[in-house]
């Protein structure tokens, strides 16, 4: 039995190491860590209230800047915190000009639980510069349609009235030219962001 475990262990570990070495430092052989889009997507014409209650015009307010758009909700147990903390930690390692060039916009798809204050407190855990947007259910549904992401779906509440929300897990990176050429799926790592952010901020596109 011990020999069996040893052989299986060495084989699997060896395969793991081999796969790791073959894969190198990113997601495949692409020059970009994110997923390149076949056709660029224009920055959506979304106008939603921000956490101060003022209307935030996505196109106008982020013109000429690298904009990373993400739909989520503050009670999310897995995807949203992982996405936000990974992006935030990568940004903190970037030079000041890259940080200044990037604008992160979080749109909550859960208007019932996510009041502006809740969204603000949530984003402040990561970075005070992150913009939080909310709106009515209809406004948010329209915003997801315009951004070409699937609409959020709401699960049945459990005994404690907690419910989860199915939502788009990718983060869309709009280059300074006003179009998204690349998206970052759930699982994007700090090292991936660190590889792409400076180039995106400079206006490079795939």
């Amino acid at each position, binding site marked *: 039995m011990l020999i069996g475990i040893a052989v299986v262990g060495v084989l699997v*570990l060896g395969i793991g190491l081999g796969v790791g070495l073959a894969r190198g430092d990113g997601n495949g052989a692409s020059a970009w860590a994110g997923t390149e889009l076949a056709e660029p997507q224009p920055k959506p014409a979304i106008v939603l209230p921000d956490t101060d209650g003022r209307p935030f015009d996505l196109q106008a307010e982020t013109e000429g800047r690298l904009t990373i758009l993400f739909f989520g909700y503050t009670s999310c147990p897995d995807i949203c915190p992982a996405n936000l903390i990974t992006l935030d*930690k990568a940004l903190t390692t970037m030079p000041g000009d890259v940080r200044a060039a990037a604008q992160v916009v979080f749109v909550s798809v859960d208007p019932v639980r996510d009041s502006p204050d809740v969204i603000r407190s949530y984003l402040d855990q990561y970075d005070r510069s992150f913009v939080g947007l909310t709106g009515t259910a209809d406004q948010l549904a329209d915003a997801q349609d315009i951004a070409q992401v699937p609409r959020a779906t709401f699960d049945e509440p459990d005994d404690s009235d907690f419910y989860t929300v199915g939502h788009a897990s990718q983060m869309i990176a709009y280059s300074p030219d006003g179009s998204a050429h690349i998206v970052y799926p759930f699982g994007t790592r700090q090292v991936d962001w660190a590889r792409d952010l400076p180039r995106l901020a400079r206006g490079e596109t795939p």
Partner: protein
Amino acid sequence: MRFWCVRLLSDWSWEWRPYYGVWVLVAAFATVYGLSWRRHLRVTGRSLVAADRRHVYRFAGALAVLWITSDWPLGALGSGYLLSAHMMQFLLYVLGVAPLMLLGVPEWMARRFVHRLQIDRLYRIVARPLVAGVLFNVLLVCSHAPDTVDLLRGSQLGSFVIDMTWLLMGLIAWSPVISPLPEVVHESVLIKMAYLFLAIGGVSIVPAGFMVFSEYPLYSAYELAPRVGLSAVDDQQLAGAIMKVGMVPVVWGAMAVMWARWFYADHAGDQSYRRARADAPPRSEV
């Protein structure tokens, strides 16, 4: 209910979760050990003496550490949340469970075990200091490679393989020093001390250094896991420190014990030699 601790995407909770594979493994070890003792005592017609009890206590200690290391909460934290907990598990398997197991198995049981598995020759080869040291460190590097950990921690079987590989690594690493088979243990104290220093305490500085000094998290399994207090980079630095510093007390402690035993044995030998010389009649009288 799960077989073995595995990576989960849900938030960490201090609510107890059962992992029956851990209980089955511990029970299996205890049963085989207990039955071996029963059979041995029946065949030899003797009862447990103090030296036997020491073996039993050490093996019981090994199983206790095995249980604590593999089960909730440390097993669950280490398999899916904190790299530092994962590293604690590694140290406990290699520096706790494995040596206690070797010290808890009496010679007759070890002999029967390797004979029944027909690994007598293999074990003697593997337990040579050079072979054991190389094997331990190759497995150390492989089992801590980011892609290995990311791949295996995602499934219960993979997580089990990682944990058992560490246990096996520990058994291999400690065999040249404290194997229950005396012919396997290297005779030279100096070589044993050098082996411990270089083989067990030496190479780990490389992966530990990567963990401490890397700007970004190396393991996606722990980077993307729900956070438990520490950021991914802080957790990784802590894991690197645990890997390096955690080895020190056990490895240096073992070296100190070996040196002290050797010194006193040698000293005692000198004294008895001097006494013998003093008691002996003068050479001219012989």
